[in-house]
């Protein structure tokens, strides 16, 4: 173990985000230590997706600071002033942050293995042969070696989501963001995706997971945060907060989800 005072992988301070006149995030503070899994839960429209999208700078923010692995996201601080990063710098910052979407968003014109190779070949300049070798390994890791040459349309939802996870892992991320990765799946397919995520967590990946799967949160999560109305209303060890929720709204929410 390294020294305990290491910077967290993700550090969010006083994050505010508005769309037009609607403030969606109203001051979020959150730390995700290295190797931990933070599960984010909350009602629809509470700003969970927006929170994740701010972390990899898919959304600009209105105030606050976000650091990933010690690096300020979206800005450079020079001479006591913030300077917006150029697009190329943003791309560089996004590279080591994987993102998995509710609706998979696999590239439909490429096969499973080509989807996994796309990032390394296009963004990292990896040779096709090397990328193919890595992609083969990753597909094996998510249990889809035999589907390498299938197009997304020929795969089940669970299989597509596992390819999407492999596609993110191909960039060798240090942080993975999951936005309701199992919400679009038929119930019998949820477990195969959660199993892959469980393995990933066990391998020490730092993860932020927006989910309604309380079983997963209880079993894999190191921290659970409940977001409502753009603020974190309750947080703590998932096993404890799920067993004895203090906040009324959280209790009501759990009553609806469980």
């Amino acid at each position, binding site marked *: 173990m390294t020294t305990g005072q290491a910077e967290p992988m993700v550090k969010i301070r006083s994050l505010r985000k508005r769309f037009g006149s609607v403030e969606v995030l109203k001051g979020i503070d959150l730390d995700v230590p290295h190797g931990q899994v933070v599960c984010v839960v909350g009602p629809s429209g509470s700003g969970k997706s927006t929170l994740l999208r701010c972390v990899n700078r898919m959304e600009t923010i209105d105030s606050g600071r976000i650091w990933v692995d010690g690096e300020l996201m979206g800005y450079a601080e020079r001479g006591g002033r913030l300077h917006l990063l150029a697009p190329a710098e943003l791309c560089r910052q996004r590279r080591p942050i994987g993102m998995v979407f509710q609706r998979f*968003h696999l590239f439909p014109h490429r096969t499973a293995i080509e989807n996994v190779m796309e990032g390394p070949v296009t*963004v990292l300049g990896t040779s096709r042969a090397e990328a193919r070798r890595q992609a083969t390994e990753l597909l094996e890791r998510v249990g889809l070696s035999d589907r390498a040459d299938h197009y997304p349309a020929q795969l089940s939802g669970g299989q597509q989501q596992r390819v999407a996870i492999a*596609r993110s892992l191909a960039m060798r991320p240090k942080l993975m963001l999951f936005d309701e990765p199992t919400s679009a799946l038929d119930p019998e397919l949820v477990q195969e995706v959660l199993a892959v995520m469980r393995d990933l967590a066990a391998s020490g990946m730092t993860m932020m997971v927006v989910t309604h799967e309380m079983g997963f949160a209880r079993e894999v999560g190191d921290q659970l945060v409940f977001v409502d109305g753009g603020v974190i209303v309750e947080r703590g060890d998932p096993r404890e907060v799920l067993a004895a929720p203090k906040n009324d709204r959280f209790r009501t929410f759990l009553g609806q989800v469980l």
Partner: protein
Amino acid sequence: MEVTSTGSSAGSQDGEPSAQVPVELPIEAVRPPRPGRVIGAGVALLFLVWLAYTVIVNENLHWDVIVSFLMDGRILGGLWVTIQLTVFSMAIGLVLGVLAAVMQLSDNPVLRGTSGLYTWFFRGTPLLVQLIFWFNIGLVFPSFGIGVPFDGPKLIEWQANELITPFTAALLGLAINEGAYMAEIVRAGIRSVDPGQREAAEALGMSHGQVLRRVVLPQAMRVIIPPTGNQFISMLKTTSMVSVIAGAELLTVAQRIYLGNFEVIAMLIVASIWYVVLTTIASIGQHFIEKRFERGHAALGARVRRNLRPFAKEPA
């Protein structure tokens, strides 16, 4: 043993339920009489026969002249110019269209405005006027050069009269006009791609250009290709407008010939026959390409290769 299809398998020997033999119930229904259709078809056929007869026996049409000019060297030369004009102006128009479409969808209001001005102006003025304008551009800008803008010194300079031949004027007019229409088609194609695709690509760390080239445009092609085929077929005929600036394409050549031999109708028919041949070939090509694109979501390159495999040389 006779197996009846009544399903009661009482006669099954070894106690097993006998496999049910499906009942055949062939349908040999009699169509109701449809006298209207028969009469309609008869009338149409009669009309076609009459039309063919009057055309064929008509002495004013000079079929012998038509046949003798169909393969005339000048006509074939004009045909070649028509093909070149079509292919080049479509290719340049496609590039301009992609550029304009990408500018139109950008966040930068100046780029958006420039693109909007371009499509607004060139779709808003007649092509005929544009062609005559480009041909006479020398009246406005007697010389072109590369150098410092706003009347600064020039590195190279050309005289408009040397640069602007009927062919280059035609190419300019057709390509720039086509670009304005292609911009709309490409834009519709790009907008048809799920925004989630762009997000997934950006999350991998791709730049705007990479997102466009690797993810968005390949998927937009499915929507872009069919109308582009229509534009191509229509361009084959639109090139005939170039005859107003004596562009040496098919119609111009036909006109030049009939000014000499006064076979106006015959020459127009010769030109029309070639236009029909060209558009027919293009339609067949379009049908082929569209069918390939409707099938699944596979990438064009991979699919074209797969489809060509049966025609490739037999492996040794």
